[in-house]
């Protein structure tokens, strides 16, 4: 059928399907000046090359080019096809060039890892901060109320004496006012926050900052700190830091984005696997947030005329609480320090330290103590 000698420039022998019957025809295809010529014996055709769906170059496998009217030309000689197409002036997309070189692929992999890592370390916190800063206050307050309603079951009205509650409230207001004035002098506004004191059987000595500026303090926390209003103000200053940095909304955004990314990457293989980066990431981000809140607390305390070093007392009491437990939480402040029956060097703190490295949501106590000690200088 073909009489011309097989010169590369003269075209390529391919199998041609005309799109009307599925019988293959052996034809010669030529590619010149942006036109594909198919020298079929019965009906030769010319097709604009840009309307043909050309196959992407791969190392192995057949080549099949799809013609606009449904027909196709194909060949199993990949090398000859690629040479023919290149000689015909068909350019190759950068994506294919990247896919076809191992160097490009390794580079892509490195880039992917670097992008993921930097997105995780910088991009995500940055995006969360930007979104949180533009988040409507009303919506944030709504979230806060919803969370309060949810944790409401764990909370009862405070059982502290009226005088004790007022003392805490008074001391905190004083510090907060001084801080607001100092911030105003620096040209920074302080987001409003209100204090709620609650009794809780379940969450022990604790303080929480809810989105929208609700500071929750448990009775047990006041008892643990022996109603020392200055240290309690320090604890509340830390929570006020969470409010100022909008950590609540930022956490929500970060967990949402991380969850989406994790499920997009691994979700189709295993749902369980997809949640692992999520809770690892969550622990990491809340450690960052705690450091920010600590730094804020130090500023608030200095503005209120108090030394950041008084926070050390909080950690001492916590350390004692770990050893002695509920004994420390007597309704009235003990006249003398409680002496614990258990020895101070138990296994417990070491275990806590181990967990603190990887998964705990707060930085290790020792780090925080040294931070506040330095801040007091």
């Amino acid at each position, binding site marked *: 059928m073909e009489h011309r000698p097989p010169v590369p420039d003269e075209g390529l022998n391919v199998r041609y399907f005309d799109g009307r019957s*599925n019988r293959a025809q052996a034809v010669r295809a030529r590619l010149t000046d942006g036109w594909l010529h198919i020298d079929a014996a019965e009906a030769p055709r010319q097709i604009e090359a840009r309307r043909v769906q050309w196959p*992407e170059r791969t190392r192995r496998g057949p*080549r*099949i080019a799809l013609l606009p009217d449904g027909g*196709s030309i194909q060949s199993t000689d990949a090398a000859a096809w690629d040479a023919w197409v290149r000689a015909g002036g068909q350019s190759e997309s950068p994506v294919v060039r990247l896919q076809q070189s191992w160097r490009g692929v390794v580079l892509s992999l490195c880039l992917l890892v670097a992008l*993921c890592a930097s997105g995780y370390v910088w991009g995500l916190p940055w995006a969360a901060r930007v979104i949180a800063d533009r988040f409507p206050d009303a919506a944030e307050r709504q979230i806060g109320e919803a969370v309060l309603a949810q944790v409401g079951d764990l909370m009862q009205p405070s059982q502290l004496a009226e005088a004790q509650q007022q003392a805490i409230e008074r001391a905190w207001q004083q510090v907060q006012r001084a801080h607001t004035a100092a911030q105003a002098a620096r040209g920074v506004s302080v987001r409003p926050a209100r204090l709620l004191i609650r009794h809780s059987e379940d969450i022990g000595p604790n303080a929480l900052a809810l989105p929208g500026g609700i500071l929750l303090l448990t009775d047990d926390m006041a008892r643990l700190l022996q109603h020392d209003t200055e240290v309690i103000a320090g604890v509340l200053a830390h929570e006020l830091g969470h409010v100022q940095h909008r950590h609540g909304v930022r956490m929500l955004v970060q967990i949402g984005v991380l969850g989406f990314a994790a499920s997009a990457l691994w979700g189709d293989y295993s749902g369980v696997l997809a949640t692992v980066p999520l809770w690892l990431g969550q622990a990491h981000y809340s450690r960052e947030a705690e450091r920010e809140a600590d730094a804020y607390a130090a500023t608030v305390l200095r503005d209120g005329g108090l030394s950041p070093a008084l926070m050390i007392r909080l950690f001492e009491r916590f350390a004692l609480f770990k050893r002695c437990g509920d004994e420390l939480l007597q309704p009235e402040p003990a006249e003398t320090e409680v002496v614990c029956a258990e020895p101070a060097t138990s296994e417990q703190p070491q275990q806590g330290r181990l967990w603190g490295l990887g998964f705990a949501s707060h930085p290790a106590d020792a780090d925080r103590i040294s931070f506040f000690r330095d801040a007091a200088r």
Partner: protein
Amino acid sequence: MPFPNNHAPSAGAATVRHLPITFTGSGSEYFRIWIVNLLLLFVTLGLYWPWAKVRRLRYFWANTLVDGDPLGFHGEARQMFKGWVLVGVLFVLYNWASSFSAIAGLVAFVALAALWPALWRSSLAFRLGNTSWRGLRFRFVGSLRDAYLTQLPSFLAALPLVLLSFALPEDPDATPPAWWAGAFGGALLLFLLTLPWLFWRMKAYQHRHYSYAGLQTDFRAGLGAFYLIALKPLLVLLALVGLSMLYVGLRFAGGIAWDGVLWVLFRVLPMLFAGAGLLMFFVIGPWLTARLQNLVWTKTGNAQMRFISQLGFRRLLLLGFKNGLLIALTLGLYWPFAKVAVARLRLEAVHIRSVIDMEALAAAEHEQPGEAAGEAAGDLFGLDMGL
């Protein structure tokens, strides 16, 4: 039924031909495509998805050789992008509505259910209509009406469950009314019992409407075969539950101590769940895949040609173990190799037996391939043709 390879044409019968399906994809090739796709997906914040998908499908199609000739995928990424956006919007609206209020959620559920058969049909039409072999396109010829009729029982079977879940009081602490648990259990049982039937209806609709060059397939698998396949995994799971109950019964035969119950709750139950999950993922999943592929495709065909699938469970099982292990060891980098290996095993288990010359077929009249929105919907909800 396995067909002997050394067949001799009986007097008067047409020559029987066997058309093998081979898969020439390679793991390392797909790995390179996959990595670059991932990078571009990341850089474009996911907008590249349709382009990535077209690259993947073209690669898999072009390396699937039916009787030595590759399949062509004609789908356009730009068209698929529109479908992808439409489905994304639907999905967001649905989630938003359900978080708004129970009634809005119910309305959204009904609206999505009303739209779903059309998307499903459209996705099948898009896949088939954009696939060609030897220069001729496949077609999906199921009607929209039949798609709705096929899906209607599924909707009706799921509706009681959905209605009951909306009937739950909003407050999580309020105890549901006494009749609720019984009604929910009944609805769940009804749904589970009808599940093989619903699945059979869907497969029958799909496999009765594939068409190539005017040759439309028929589907001859009976409903009984689907229930038989469902029976074995059910028996295995029941046996597992029975054995664990027997074990608990024997261990606490002398009276139940409180800490014993706690031990069961916190030690035995999670292990049981994890074990059942692993069994499901690594054993029952591949078993179902193999049995269903063999049943569904071997019963697909017509007087001129039919498919024959002989996928071995043991090979799929071993491949699943190997893939799981290597994916874990390589932190996921083995994923494309695994995908290629599974595609090879599943595709090469199938061949076509025909009594006509499969190289002398003429095109039926042309029809527009389906909307890309359907294709994207099928992808998002994990629906596919099973091969």
